[in-house]
């Protein structure tokens, strides 16, 4: 089997040595926050203050209070600071700053998204003029087809992100209600719980209702495509919001799907133009394209740092930030550029100073598959408890090609193809669809490139695209001498696998297969199954 050189951290971690001790089962939240030494605790405290100010500024708006008491999922946002603690467990120095910088920015972005939803929502803010400027899109949606619209005139509302995706990160139980509703209405319990929960939210009438029109897509999976039919029915028939289905080819590596995909992008743009009355602007598009390329370069640089013995920016914060930037932003918001560069500067500093997340790194790991929302801190736990450093995760392994960014007649036609390519290469589906090569063989290439000796396979049990290659992963990992550690879960339903049940799969593998003892025994069993 492949082995890698162990890297030992010469610097003792400041402050608390055993963060596993601060959990308290009865309280459902931590007994206290982590002591990280004076400097880092103070920094963490100031970031907490910042978060509280973001939440405070949000809730003092009367319509947001009204929305809070109207929508069940809003309860999750009371637990944002608790969520922040998950993203920073055991972190110090640059790692702590990377997590805060990225995550706080995402929080501010999501908070703004909720505020926008409430402003236009017919039940809450009922700002009709604003609502008429809004275009709804899916949670798993590349918004490339909005890159050329003036963001002051047309607002892209990823309605499902604050409602389902983000809220589940802060409150592990919040999705269960919607799953129960969906199943009560006949959707089986064996489909992916994410689109099922979204359909449940629609059935439960718990989505904000706004927008001039909506664009749905098939970017993730069969379940996501199908759940949209249920959501669109209510949007169109009850609320009179026309929906467009943006079809994105599955076999995205085949050149003969490109014309179709590009035409679909054109059709989506024409649909938005028709319903909003706002015209596509090539200047705006190419500015956004420049930002997309800039973000790509930053991401490549981060990945290069992660392929060294001192990886810096990884785990939930890296993944979530990439999700937001690549998919939800797609170059439209210039603020992301500043954050990208700030994050890169922090990572470079951490690399120069050989900062580490744990006492030692015993294994270099590629995380593959789809992570469960309710154990978002898992990868930080893994490095600190077992010294398995997650170099990158599947959701962060995305496009590295540059797109056309100069406004020329040829590039305008190329732009449709670029948007189509980005759309097809959306997070997750760029590996889960398009044939076995992008899912299985590409993993081994990545292991080679990043010098990984272990693959942690998130086996999201309802994700048929992934589990359909289970045996092939097993056989090919064996042939290549790569350790393959399966960790099963059900994405956002903690009733199927609790947090500890998920961690126990790693514990069992490390003890029985690798014959190792934990770096931090306080983390091996954490009483947080009932915690929010």
């Amino acid at each position, binding site marked *: 089997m492949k082995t890698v050189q162990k890297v030992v951290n010469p610097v003792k971690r400041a402050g608390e040595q055993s963060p596993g001790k601060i959990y308290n089962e009865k309280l459902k939240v931590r007994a206290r926050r982590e002591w990280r030494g004076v400097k880092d605790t103070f920094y963490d405290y100031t970031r907490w203050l910042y978060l509280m100010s973001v939440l405070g500024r949000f809730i003092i708006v009367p319509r947001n209070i009204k929305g809070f008491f109207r929508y069940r999922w809003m309860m999750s946002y009371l637990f944002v600071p608790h969520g922040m603690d998950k993203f920073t467990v055991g972190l110090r120095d640059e790692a702590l700053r990377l997590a805060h910088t990225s995550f706080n920015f995402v929080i501010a972005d999501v908070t703004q998204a909720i505020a926008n939803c409430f402003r236009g929502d017919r039940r809450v803010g009922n700002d009709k003029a604003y609502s008429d400027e809004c275009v709804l899109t899916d949670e798993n949606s590349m918004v490339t087809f909005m890159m050329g619209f003036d963001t002051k005139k047309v607002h892209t509302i990823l309605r499902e992100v604050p409602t389902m995706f983000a809220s589940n990160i802060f409150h592990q139980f919040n999705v269960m209600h919607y799953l129960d509703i969906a199943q009560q*209405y*006949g*959707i*089986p319990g*064996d*489909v*992916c719980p994410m689109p099922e929960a979204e*359909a449940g939210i629609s059935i439960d009438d718990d989505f904000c209702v706004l927008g001039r029109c909506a664009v*749905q897509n*098939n970017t993730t*999976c*069969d*379940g996501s*495509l*199908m*759940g*949209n*039919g*249920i959501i*669109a*029915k209510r949007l*169109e028939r009850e609320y009179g919001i026309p*929906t467009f*289905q943006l*079809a994105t*080819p*599955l*076999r995205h590596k*085949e050149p*003969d*799907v490109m*014309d*179709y995909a590009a*035409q*679909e992008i054109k*059709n989506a743009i024409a649909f938005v133009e028709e319903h909003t009355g706002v015209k596509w602007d090539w200047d705006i598009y190419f500015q956004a394209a420049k930002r997309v390329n800039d973000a790509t370069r930053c991401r490549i640089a981060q990945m290069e740092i992660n392929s060294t013995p001192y990886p810096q920016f990884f785990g939930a914060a890296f993944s979530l930030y990439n999700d937001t930037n690549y998919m939800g932003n797609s170059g439209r918001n210039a603020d992301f550029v500043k954050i990208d560069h700030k994050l890169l500067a922090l990572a470079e500093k951490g690399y120069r100073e050989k900062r580490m997340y744990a006492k030692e790194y015993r294994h270099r790991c590629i995380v593959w598959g789809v992570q469960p929302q309710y154990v978002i801190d898992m990868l930080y736990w893994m490095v600190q408890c077992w010294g398995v450093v997650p170099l990158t995760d599947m959701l962060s392994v995305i496009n590295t090609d540059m797109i056309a960014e100069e406004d020329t007649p040829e590039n305008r036609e190329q732009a449709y193809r670029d948007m189509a390519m980005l759309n097809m290469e959306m997070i997750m589906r760029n590996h889960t*669809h398009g*044939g*076995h090569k992008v899912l299985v063989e590409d993993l081994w290439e990545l292991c080679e490139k990043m010098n990984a000796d272990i693959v942690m396979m998130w*086996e999201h*049990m*309802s994700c*048929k*695209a992934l*589990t*359909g*290659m*289970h*045996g*092939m992963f097993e056989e090919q990992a064996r042939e290549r001498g790569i350790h393959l550690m399966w960790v099963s879960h059900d994405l956002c339903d903690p009733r199927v696998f609790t947090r500890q049940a998920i961690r126990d799969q790693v514990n069992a593998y490390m003890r029985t297969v690798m014959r190792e003892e934990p770096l931090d025994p306080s983390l091996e069993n954490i009483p947080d199954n009932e915690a929010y």
Partner: protein
Amino acid sequence: MRDLKHLQYFEDLLQVANNALITQAREEGKVCVAYTCENVPEPLLNLPGAFSIRLHAPNTGSMDIATYYMTNLLCEPSRALLERAIEGGFNFADCVITPDGCTMINRAVENMELLNTMGKDKPNFFHSYMEIAFKNTENDVNLSVLQCTNHILNPLHEKYGIDVSDEAIRKAVAEHNRLCRVIREIGNFRKEARPRITGYEFHTLCLATYVCPQHLVLDKLEETLEELKTREPDEKQPWRARVLVVGSEVDDGGLIKLIEECGAFVCCDRFCFGSYPGRVEIELNDEEDALTQVCRHYIRNCQCPRMMNQQKVYGRKQYVAELAKEYGADGVIYEQVKFCDPWAYERTLGSAMLKEDYGYPVLSVDRPYNIASSVGQMRTRVQAFVESIEIKAIQRGGRA
């Protein structure tokens, strides 16, 4: 009723994937084009010199090896197909055409390919995967034409020298239409108040047209049609209700038989391997090339839930309602093979809309691939459904 002369013959053909007619057709020198999804335009696989076989795995028992490769969370048809392929049950195929229709079947075939389950002694053997349309627009027709050209016609021509000209396609469509006409005419007997054919008998005949070389079953089907024209239905009918079965793939006559044993006459079939929409004639004109027209026909008629635009989403329910009306169904059974994502949602939305928008009683069930493994549960569900239809009829003052 008197037994149909060839029913036993067709039943025997359905007992194994590698049936005697496939061997016969291959001995004639024809190329066996295996496929896995109703979204593949069948006439393109039945060009002169080739014949199509839709893969199925009758009498599936253990799926242990396939379950290792794909876990027990994938739908049973996908695992059953893989298991059968690993066992060598599909060695008759000279190529496999797989559209990326649903993820699970696609993964099943990818596993078959990676495990080299087929084509070991066939130098020209190939696997071909194709993108299929999501909507019913001209952009989708263009996609379909390109995909069929690149992933069906070109490899068939290059590897096996199959004539893929417009003339050849038109000839294949003519043969296809001849088959469809026979099946349609046989199926129309189910509209009768005292039907002279059971749903099970019809399903057996129809299924044979998918899993056997079509040119070798046509004569017996035509003979059966003639036989049916004079067949006398029983005076006393055993049926307590007429139902339309809608859903994912049914390549197991046992399901239809079970439903009918519960007193529900299956008057119409709208499922994969069924006659709607798979056995609807393709109309060709002389103005446009045949390939484009075939592709357009499949896109317009496709009732697969993966077609995602709302016109198709609502259209599928309307299509079911129209069939129910045409065939005089008292109720609709929406069935789904367990773990099938597309039909999980389609069944939910379809059963709600058929009930609320069109007023039909609906039974919504999931089921195993091989119904023999869950007879009791399904029988209870269908019996209860039949009783509920009867009760509703009594409440309306009709017959029980």
